[in-house]
């Protein structure tokens, strides 16, 4: 029992229950205690520590540690802690509970040793995170949250169906690497995980919901869902070649939308898809270097992506809008936020001395040296787009472009700066000391990021992309637009869908009901007095109440019986 409540995921979920008993003043601080406890537990557990239990006939492995799960476990605990610090000023109980439960679900998935435990935490994540969208309480976010929830229930259902099928066929529910065979069970599981990984074309829940979630909610969301799914991909689907092409497609797809979009949170949300694309691609390549790259990139991405989301959320908190159309010229008024954002921007673009450089290069090299040179070039295109969209365009039109921002600005709480400062420090720290991260990676590859070739490569790309951006910047000027994506098909198609699946079905049931009633009416009419049609050769009124059996009826039954007997006997 004591072992059970020291499982990191359980700690956070219990924590979510505990904080609900405390007052608004203590709650934000208490929130922070649980990720810290989880981190301590993770750091003090020996290698290959397991906790087992059982459910019905299944032997469950509730917790299992190794290098890969610890890497994700630590960064999830760290992410929950820093997002908690960032949200320290936010007093709403519902959001605090759902955020902590959500983080607990993510940690639970990372340490789950069997697929049944995994699916339970998986569903907890989907349910808990939905509240972070609904908590805005606007009609728009109500609808968006519902779409998000339906999408995740679909994904969870596919995964669960795959797990059940897999458990029957393979007689195993262990979370382990699956050989690349396109059996129904494997396809179902891969589809279920693909939904959470936002693999195109199953990505629209992300770009739809993340920009609409609550301000602090988006920070939590950007950390957990996709990265948990990447963890499961690394665990189970390493070396599935199909993922290479989908990953590369995601990397470019996300970039295009990041270049097109004009809302800071939309840009960063689409950019998550692009970044996760790198990881998915690396999982598909499946070499030691590639898997290390996927894990390291997920780790770093949590650091700098949440830093960037925090910075734009700080601007949004202060200026009251996340649309760049309303912003611009903020560099004098929010210089620190700009500085912190730029650290994230340089990191994500893989500039030397920042965190992204030490992991992105790993993925790109894994493609280049794994026999996928075209894929390597595609990933480099995505690198150019990353630098262009979130490294240059977003900060330029938010902090510069205009002489000075003239609107009202709310002061930004200190706790936001603390969280961003820690993350910015971490981004630079890992960039300068890559071995601090490399020693915790699951494989030994001897990869060396700081070679002359890597530095020349990235600096030439970054410098000339900047020059091109400078010439073209007016073309990217912000405007107020809605950008369509594949979710158009289920958002705009809603009336048609309703016609087919609601009205048609309704009408069908109506018709069937009508037919049944008509039949009942007909039968009750006819059987009220069967003598009317059993004995039509009389002009007497055949009223059932007055009827007495007469000879003719008896005779006709005798003849009928004789006829039936004769037919059966002679044939």
């Amino acid at each position, binding site marked *: 029992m004591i072992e059970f409540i020291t499982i990191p995921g359980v700690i956070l979920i219990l924590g979510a229950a505990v904080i609900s008993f405390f007052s608004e003043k203590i709650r934000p601080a208490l929130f922070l205690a649980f990720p810290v406890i989880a981190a301590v537990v993770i750091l003090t557990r020996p290698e290959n520590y397991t906790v087992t239990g059982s459910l019905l006939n299944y032997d469950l492995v509730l917790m299992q540690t190794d290098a890969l799960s610890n890497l994700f476990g630590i960064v999830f605990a760290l992410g929950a802690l820093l997002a908690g610090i960032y949200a320290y000023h936010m007093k709403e109980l519902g959001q605090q509970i759902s955020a902590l439960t959500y983080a607990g679900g993510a940690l639970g998935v990372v340490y789950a040793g069997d697929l049944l435990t995994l699916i339970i935490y998986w569903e907890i994540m989907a349910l808990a995170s939905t509240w972070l969208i609904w908590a805005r309480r606007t009609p*728009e976010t109500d609808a968006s949250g519902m779409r998000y929830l339906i999408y995740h229930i679909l994904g969870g259902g596919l995964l669960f169906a795959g797990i059940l099928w897999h458990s029957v066929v393979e007689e195993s529910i262990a979370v382990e690497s699956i050989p690349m065979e396109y059996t129904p069970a494997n396809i179902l599981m891969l589809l279920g995980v693909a939904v959470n990984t936002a693999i195109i074309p199953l990505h629209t829940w992300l770009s739809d919901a993340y920009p609409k979630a609550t301000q602090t909610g988006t920070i939590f969301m950007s950390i957990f869902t996709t990265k948990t799914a990447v963890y499961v991909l690394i665990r189970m689907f390493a070396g599935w070649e199909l993922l290479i092409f989908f990953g590369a497609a995601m990397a470019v797809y996300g*970039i*295009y939308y990041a*270049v*097109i979009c004009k809302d800071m949170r939309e840009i960063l949300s689409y950019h998550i898809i692009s970044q996760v694309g790198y990881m998915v691609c690396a999982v598909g390549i499946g070499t030691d270097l590639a898997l290390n790259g996927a894990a390291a990139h997920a780790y770093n991405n949590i650091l700098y992506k949440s830093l960037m989301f925090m910075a734009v959320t700080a601007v949004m908190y202060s200026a009251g809008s996340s649309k760049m159309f309303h912003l611009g010229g903020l560099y004098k008024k929010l210089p620190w936020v700009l500085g912190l954002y730029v650290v994230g921007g340089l990191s994500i673009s893989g500039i030397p001395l920042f965190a992204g450089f030490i992991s992105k290069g790993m993925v790109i090299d894994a493609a*280049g*040296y794994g026999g996928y*040179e075209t894929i*390597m*070039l595609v990933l*480099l*295109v995505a690198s*150019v*787009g990353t630098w*262009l969209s979130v490294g240059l365009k977003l900060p330029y039109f938010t902090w510069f472009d205009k002489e000075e921002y003239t609107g009202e600005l709310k002061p930004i709480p200190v706790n936001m700066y603390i969280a961003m400062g820690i993350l910015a420090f971490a981004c630079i720290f890992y960039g300068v000391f890559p071995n601090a991260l490399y020693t915790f990676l699951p494989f030994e590859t001897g990869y060396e990021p700081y070679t*002359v*070739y890597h*530095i*020349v*490569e*990235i*600096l*030439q*790309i*970054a*410098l*000339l*992309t*900047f*020059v*091109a*951006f*400078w010439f*073209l910047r007016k*073309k*990217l000027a912000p405007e*107020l*637009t*809605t*950008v*369509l*994506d594949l979710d158009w098909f289920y*958002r*705009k198609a809603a009336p048609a869908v309703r016609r087919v699946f609601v009205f048609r079905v309704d009408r069908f049931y109506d018709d069937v009901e009508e037919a049944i009633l008509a039949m009942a009416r007909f039968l009750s009419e006819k059987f009220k007095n069967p003598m009317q049609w059993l004995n039509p050769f009389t002009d007497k009124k055949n009223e059932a109440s007055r009827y007495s059996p007469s000879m003719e009826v008896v005779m006709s039954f005798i003849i009928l019986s004789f006829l039936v007997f004769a037919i059966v006997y002679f044939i």
Partner: protein
Amino acid sequence: MKTIHWIILGIIFVITLVLEFTVLAGYDSHWWNAIPAFYAIFGFVICYALVYSAKFIAKKIVNRDINYYD
């Protein structure tokens, strides 16, 4: 961007070119290593291509009025 900024960027660019033609002169692991200053050209061309194609996609396909879904 002041002139000094451009000069700094120019100096960094020249350093990368010098490194490419000295330290990396014999480097040959991908077919494109034979093209001088490949990554610089790549960054510039791809950036132009991305901006113009994204602009085209936005205009022709995906951009709608801000209240489109309301």
